[in-house]
């Protein structure tokens, strides 16, 4: 067992830290969050530095590094500035289905723009009546000649109002049994019949929108079908399971960020004539936060390491997706407690960290749904 970061991992982390320090201005970040705007400027610069989707192969504009190395970078970005870091990482996660199941032509056409920071993508699965339950979808894709006609609506779709393209999932076979009638498509946002708009204020992930998309008789060429017809559910699951480890990494970054701020406060703030870190209650809270983060991070790294070995383990990945967000939420609450009154203000970033931590618990499958899957992995069929 080897627990040390490789020299490359350390270098990448340093580089990202320097980049974030140089590029992020807290005042600008707060303004972006307030206006709910995507940080395009930093996103493009991060793309030029090779910090976006760096695990993509080189021919697709990536750096060809392992997912673990990429996640260490992402963790560091979010740790430094969650509003920016989350936006940077959420640009490419939605394109995972395309990366894993698209054909060469499709991948070459759409993916390099993501690594360069020129575009963001969205994945459109969730519908008003299908959240955790996606055995069937209400959005229909009907084949007509060389095209599919998309009809229906999607909800809570990250970045759908600014994305260059979506991977959309729709019911192609309405008579199929559960899970068996869904297909995936690549759909460009600027296609006739598509309307997408942000649906309002959220507690977290404020620099990325959450949209409704309406598809009114949208014509999609059959070349844009992802993989095989009616295999969509399997693609979603495979891609999500990989994306979920990234979500776990985001949560670790959030927890570390909140912890850093609490630690700094405890070392400087004085009450009753001493640094508040000298009070046992504060000290113990910090220790507990550190214990939680270290153990959750190890679980997350292990899941990533297994993935990079080509031995992705579903139970390990999903347990990381459950544990890390819970730790992040708890750490943020404790950090707010330590900063007391100050912790409640946006300027200290903690409300934002907490909001994003809640999002990591809910994004790409709620913790409860992950636990259902882990339970069936552990218990088998009963």
């Amino acid at each position: 067992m080897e627990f040390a970061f490789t020299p490359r991992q350390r270098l990448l982390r340093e580089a990202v830290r320097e980049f974030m320090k140089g590029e992020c201005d807290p005042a600008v970040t707060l303004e972006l969050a307030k206006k709910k705007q995507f940080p395009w400027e930093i996103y493009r610069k991060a793309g030029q530095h090779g910090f976006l989707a760096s695990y993509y192969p080189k021919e697709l504009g990536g750096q060809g590094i392992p997912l673990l190395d990429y996640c260490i970078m992402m963790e560091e970005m979010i740790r430094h500035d969650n509003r920016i870091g989350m936006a940077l990482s959420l640009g490419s996660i939605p394109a995972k289905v395309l990366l894993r199941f698209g054909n060469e032509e499709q991948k070459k056409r759409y993916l390099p723009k993501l690594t360069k920071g020129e575009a963001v993508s969205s994945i459109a699965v969730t519908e008003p009546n299908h959240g955790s339950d996606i055995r069937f979808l209400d959005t229909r894709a009907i084949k007509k000649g060389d095209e599919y006609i998309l009809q229906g609506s999607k909800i809570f779709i990250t970045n759908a109002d600014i994305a260059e393209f979506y991977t959309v999932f729709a019911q192609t076979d309405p008579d199929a049994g559960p899970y068996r009638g869904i297909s995936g498509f690549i759909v460009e946002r600027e296609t006739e019949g598509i309307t997408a708009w942000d649906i309002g204020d959220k507690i977290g992930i404020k620099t990325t929108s959450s949209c409704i998309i309406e598809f009114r008789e949208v014509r999609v060429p059959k070349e844009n079908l992802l993989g095989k017809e009616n295999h969509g559910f399997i693609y979603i699951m495979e891609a999500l399971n990989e994306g979920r480890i990234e979500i776990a990494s985001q949560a670790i970054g959030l927890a570390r960020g909140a912890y850093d701020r609490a630690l700094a406060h405890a070392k400087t703030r004085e009450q009753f004539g001493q640094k508040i870190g000298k009070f046992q209650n504060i000290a113990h809270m910090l220790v507990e936060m550190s214990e939680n983060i270290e153990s959750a991070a190890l679980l997350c790294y292990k899941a990533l390491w297994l993935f990079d070995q080509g031995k992705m383990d579903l139970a390990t990945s999903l347990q990381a997706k459950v544990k890390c967000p819970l730790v992040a939420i708890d750490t943020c609450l404790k950090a707010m407690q330590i900063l007391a009154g100050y912790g409640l203000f946006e300027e200290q970033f903690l409300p934002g960290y907490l909001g994003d931590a809640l999002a990591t618990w809910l994004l790409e499958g709620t913790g409860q749904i992950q636990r259902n899957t882990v339970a069936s992995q552990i218990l088998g069929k009963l």
Partner: protein
Amino acid sequence: MDFELSNRQKQIRMAAREFAEGELLPIGKECEEKGDYPREIIKKAAQLGFIGVFFKKEYGGLGLGSLEHAIILEEFWRAEPGLAQVLSQTVFGTDMLLLYGSEEQKKKYLPPIAKGAWVSGFAITEPEAGSDTASASTLAEKVGEEYVINGSKVMISNGTVAHFILVYCLTHPEENSKTKRHSILLVETDRPGYKADRIHGKMGIRAADTANIFFNNVRVPKENLVGTEGNGFLQLMKFLDHSRAIIGAQAVGLSQGAFEQAVQYTKRRKQFGRTIASFQATQFKIAEMATLIETARTLTYKACWAIDRGHPDTQLSAMAKWWSAQVAIRVVDEALQLHGGYGYLDDYPIERYYRAAKILEIYEGTKEIQKLAIGRRVLGTP
């Protein structure tokens, strides 16, 4: 709303405390070590009127309510949980007689219990029917004017010492509804075919009698039916509304006792040149324990209050039992922790409290079953 106990209730508490500290505390450790069942102590408690206070006067009681019964047991459990369990289970099952028994049954069976001459029991659990009581298979067949009982029950309080046991029997196996198949029969333990083996090796409360019971063609006259034929399950549910609130009181008493020991110990014990009570970590623990106990006590009293008003509340009783037992487990754990290594030795009583506490989360419905009961009350049957 009035949260103050009446003068009478306060006097009852003082008397119970005096008895518990004077009579139970001195012999508790020895009884626990030897597993002796102390019959004398039951007689003494009965002479002072502590047994069956909630029986009407014509049945030998004091005509008081569940709340007074709860206060007495709370004080017993505070001083000495092991012997308190002996005195708690002395009347176990009598609520069933009070609720559903005939006038003759009440007059015949309750007064000797209030006098301390007899103890009762209630046999529900079977090897294959724990939480799932509706699966109980101990069979009672009606033959002429008698019932003939065959089967076995496990982990039954007072099995070897009770004068009579109420037995939850299967009388209508052909009935479609699982909740209409059972009836409750009163079985005197001197009837031929009744056999009870005391169980040894319990984790705690070792002085209390617990037995496995076997019925081999045990005949009882039809007058021994308690309530209505086929109504056993529903009667049991109503009964549990009463008994579960009382478990809450036991848990509150145990918590209070453990808590007071922790307070005393931390004020005396010195480390790093000061009492450990002067450390913030200790103070916060004590504060948390005190708050938890207060919530458990208030909830338990409210559940008892509902019973005494003639409106037992399934949800409140289940909440009182689950929450108070959980509080007991947490409080006793922290109390032992504060004793450090000494807490682990039997020089201090705290380890006995620790061992006694766990049963509170198990008997008369595990904590999981309590949560089911609460969930169903809140949500209806989804």
